[in-house]
C-alpha cells in the first residue's frame, strides 16, 4: 500500500521518467559512437584486403604461381593473429596453396565481399574467429581468397555492449531506488502538511504549522499556509466581531421595545394583551440569544479563569439534576444520577451550573418520552481533574456533525428548530468548559449521545 503510494507519487514518477530518458540518451550516444568506430574499422579492413590483393596480383605477374605460393607461405609464418589468410585454388576448385581450408561455408555480402567463421588455434586454444574475405582471379587459372579476421571489432563490440548494459542497469536501479527514497521523504513531508492542516482546520484555527523546523520549499509552503491561516483567522474574527457588534447595538433598542410593549400590554384591553404578550415573548427570546452570543464571545475572547474559588462539582450536579427533574418527569424521561464521588474543581459556580444546565437541557429536549438520561461524575482517566458524563437515549448525533454542533446557532436538522432554544447551548457549554481549562467531547451512546465534560 505504502509502496504503491510512493511509486505513484509525483516525485517518483518524475525521477523515474528522468532516469529512463537519461539511460536512453546514453545508450543512443554509445551506440552511435560504436557505429562510427565500426564503420572506420571495416572500411580500413576492406581497404587493406584490397591492397593485399593488388600485391598478390603484382607477385603473380612477376613470379607467377610459385611466387604467390612463396608469398603466401611467408605470410603464414607470421605469429600475429591479425595477419592475412589465403586460399589459392585452381579453376577446378582444388586447393593449390594457402592456410585456409578448401571448403568453407561463405556468407555473401554485397560488392563481392564474403564472410565466414573459422576455428583457429591460438595459445593452444581453439577460438572461433570471424573473417572478412574477397576473391581475386590471378591470370586465367587461379583464384585467391584473401581473408582477414575482424575479431578485434567483435570483441570490442561485445565489450561495449556488456559495459553499456551493466552501466545502464546500475544507473536505472540506483536512480529508481534513490527516487523511491526521495519520493517517500517528500511524500512524508506532504502527508505531514496535510495532517497538520486537517488538524488545524478541524480543531483550533489559531494553531500554526512549525515552519521553522522545516527546510527549503516545505518551509516556504508552511509559511505560506501559516499566512493563509492568519488571514482566515482574521476574517473569522472580523465576522464574529461584526455579529457581536450587531448583537450589542440591537440589544438596547430591543430592551426598550420590550418595555414599551409591557406598558402597552397594561393599557390595552385584555383581548389585545394576548398578542402583546406574545410579542414580548419574542423580544425576550431575541434578547436571550443576543446575551448568549455576547456571553460566549466574552468567554472566548477573555483569558482563562484566574480566580481560586472552589466549586463542589457533586453538589452542582445534584442541584442541576434536581432543577431539571420535573422537566424530565413531564416527558416521562428517567433522569438518573450515579453515585457521585466528592469532587472539587476550581471555577465559577454560576458558569459551571450554566454549562451543566445547557447540556442537561439538551439531553432532555432531544430524548423522546420514556427514554433515559444518565448523569455520572468520575475522576478523569488522565488522573487530573474530573469528567462529567451526561448520556441520553435519544436519536443521537451522527459523528460527522460532532464538530459542528458546538458552532453558534448550528442545528443538526432543520426540523429541530421547532424545538425551543436558541442553538447556542452547546457552544456556550464549550466556551465555559474551555474558559475553565477543560473541554467537551461527544461520543456515541448507541443509541443516543454521550456528552463528556472534562474539567481540571
Amino acid at each position, binding site marked *: 500500500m505504502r509502496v504503491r503510494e510512493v511509486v505513484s507519487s509525483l516525485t517518483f514518477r518524475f525521477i523515474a521518467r528522468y532516469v529512463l530518458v537519461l539511460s536512453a540518451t546514453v545508450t543512443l550516444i554509445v551506440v552511435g559512437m560504436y557505429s562510427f568506430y565500426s564503420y572506420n574499422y571495416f572500411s580500413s579492413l576492406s581497404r587493406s584486403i584490397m591492397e593485399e590483393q593488388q600485391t598478390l596480383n603484382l607477385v603473380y605477374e612477376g613470379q607467377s604461381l610459385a611466387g604467390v605460393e612463396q608469398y603466401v607461405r611467408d605470410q603464414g609464418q607470421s605469429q600475429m593473429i591479425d595477419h592475412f589468410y589465403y586460399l589459392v585454388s585452381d579453376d577446378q576448385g582444388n586447393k593449390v596453396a594457402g592456410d585456409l581450408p578448401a571448403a568453407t561455408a561463405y556468407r555473401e555480402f554485397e560488392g563481392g565481399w564474403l564472410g565466414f567463421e573459422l576455428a583457429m588455434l591460438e595459445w593452444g586454444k581453439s577460438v572461433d574467429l570471424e573473417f572478412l574475405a574477397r576473391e581475386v582471379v590471378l591470370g586465367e587459372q587461379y583464384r585467391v581468397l584473401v581473408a582477414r579476421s575482424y575479431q578485434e571489432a567483435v570483441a570490442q563490440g561485445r565489450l561495449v555492449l556488456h559495459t553499456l548494459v551493466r552501466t545502464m542497469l546500475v544507473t536505472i536501479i540506483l536512480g529508481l531506488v534513490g527516487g523511491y527514497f526521495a519520493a517517500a521523504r517528500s511524500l512524508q513531508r506532504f502527508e505531514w502538511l496535510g495532517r497538520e492542516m486537517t488538524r488545524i482546520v478541524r480543531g483550533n484555527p489559531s494553531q500554526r504549522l512549525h515552519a521553522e523546523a522545516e527546510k527549503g520549499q516545505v518551509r516556504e509552503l508552511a509559511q505560506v499556509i501559516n499566512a493563509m491561516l492568519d488571514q482566515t483567522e482574521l476574517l473569522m474574527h472580523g465576522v464574529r466581531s461584526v455579529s457581536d457588534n450587531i448583537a450589542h447595538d440591537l*440589544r*438596547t433598542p*430591543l*430592551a*426598550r421595545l*420590550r*418595555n414599551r*410593549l*409591557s*406598558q402597552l*400590554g397594561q393599557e390595552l384591553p385584555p383581548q389585545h*394583551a394576548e398578542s402583546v*404578550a406574545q410579542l*414580548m*415573548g419574542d423580544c*425576550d427570546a431575541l*434578547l*436571550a440569544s443576543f*446575551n*448568549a452570543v*455576547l*456571553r460566549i464571545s*466574552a*468567554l472566548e475572547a*477573555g483569558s482563562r*479563569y484566574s*480566580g481560586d*474559588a472552589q466549586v463542589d462539582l457533586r453538589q452542582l450536579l445534584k*442541584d442541576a439534576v*434536581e*432543577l*431539571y427533574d*420535573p*422537566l424530565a418527569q*413531564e416527558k416521562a424521561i428517567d433522569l438518573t444520577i450515579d453515585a457521585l464521588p466528592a469532587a472539587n474543581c476550581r471555577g*465559577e*459556580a*454560576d*458558569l459551571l*451550573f*450554566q454549562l451543566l*444546565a*445547557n447540556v442537561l*437541557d439538551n439531553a432532555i*429536549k432531544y430524548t423522546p418520552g420514556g427514554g433515559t438520561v444518565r448523569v455520572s461524575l468520575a475522576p478523569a482517566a488522565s488522573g487530573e481533574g474530573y469528567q462529567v458524563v451526561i448520556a441520553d437515549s435519544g436519536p443521537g448525533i451522527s459523528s460527522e456533525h460532532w464538530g459542528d454542533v458546538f458552532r453558534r446557532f448550528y442545528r443538526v436538522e432543520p426540523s429541530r428548530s421547532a424545538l*425551543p*432554544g*436558541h442553538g447556542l*447551548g452547546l457552544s456556550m457549554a464549550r466556551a465555559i468548559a474551555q*474558559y475553565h481549562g477543560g473541554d467537551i467531547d461527544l461520543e456515541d451512546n448507541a443509541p443516543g449521545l454521550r456528552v463528556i465534560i472534562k474539567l481540571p
Partner: protein
Amino acid sequence: MNILLVEDDAAVAEFIATELTRAGCRHTLCGDGDLAYDLARKQQFDVWVVDRMLPGRDGLSLIRDLRSVGDTTPALILSALGEVDDRVQGLRCGADDYLVKPFAIDELLARLQVLRRRASASAEVETRLQVADLEMDLLQQEVTRGGQVVALQPREYRLLEYLMRHAGQVVTRAMLLEHVWGYSFDPQTNVIDVHVSRLRQKIDKTFDVPLLATVRGVGYCLAADEEAQ
C-alpha cells in the same frame, strides 16, 4: 420609594427615570460617582441604583466607600455585560443585587421592590409567614392552607418561602433561580415554570381562591386576590 439613580449615560438615565416616575417612585438622578457619594451621605434613600462605569468614582468603589462609613441602604448595580465574573465582584463589594444591561424595566422594578422590603423587614425575626389562608411555620417547616397540611418537597418549600416573603411583589424567574436555587444563569427553557406549576398544584389546586398568579412576561406573584396587581 425614594431612589438614588447613579448613571452617567444620559439616554439610559432618562429612560430609567421615566419608567421610575411611571411606577410611582421618587428619584434623584446623578451622573458622577463623587457627587453621588456626597448625595448619599447627606440624604437617606430607600435604594441606590448604581451603574458600574462612572466618572469620578466607579460604582463598585462608591458602594464600598458608603458601606465603610456604615451606610446599609440596599444597592443594586447596573452593568453592561462584558466581564464574566463581575457579578461576584459586585456582590462582594457590598451591593445587594446586580442587573445586567439591557434589562426589562419590570425586572428592575421587581428587584427594587424586593430590596426595599428586605431592608424594612430585616429588623424583626420572623417565625411564621402568612398570605391569606396560606401559612408557613418557619420553625416547624410546615405549610398549611385553610388548616390543611400541604406536603412539600424541600425545594418547593424554599420556593414557596421566597414567594411568601415577597408576597404581593412580582418576582421574576431570574430572581427565583438566584435565590431559591442559588445560581445565576440563563435557562434555555422555562424550567422554572415547571417547578412553579408543581407548587401551584399543591397549594392552589384544591382551593377556590388561587394565590399564585403568573404575571405575563415578568414572573410570578403570590398574593391574596385583593392584593394582587
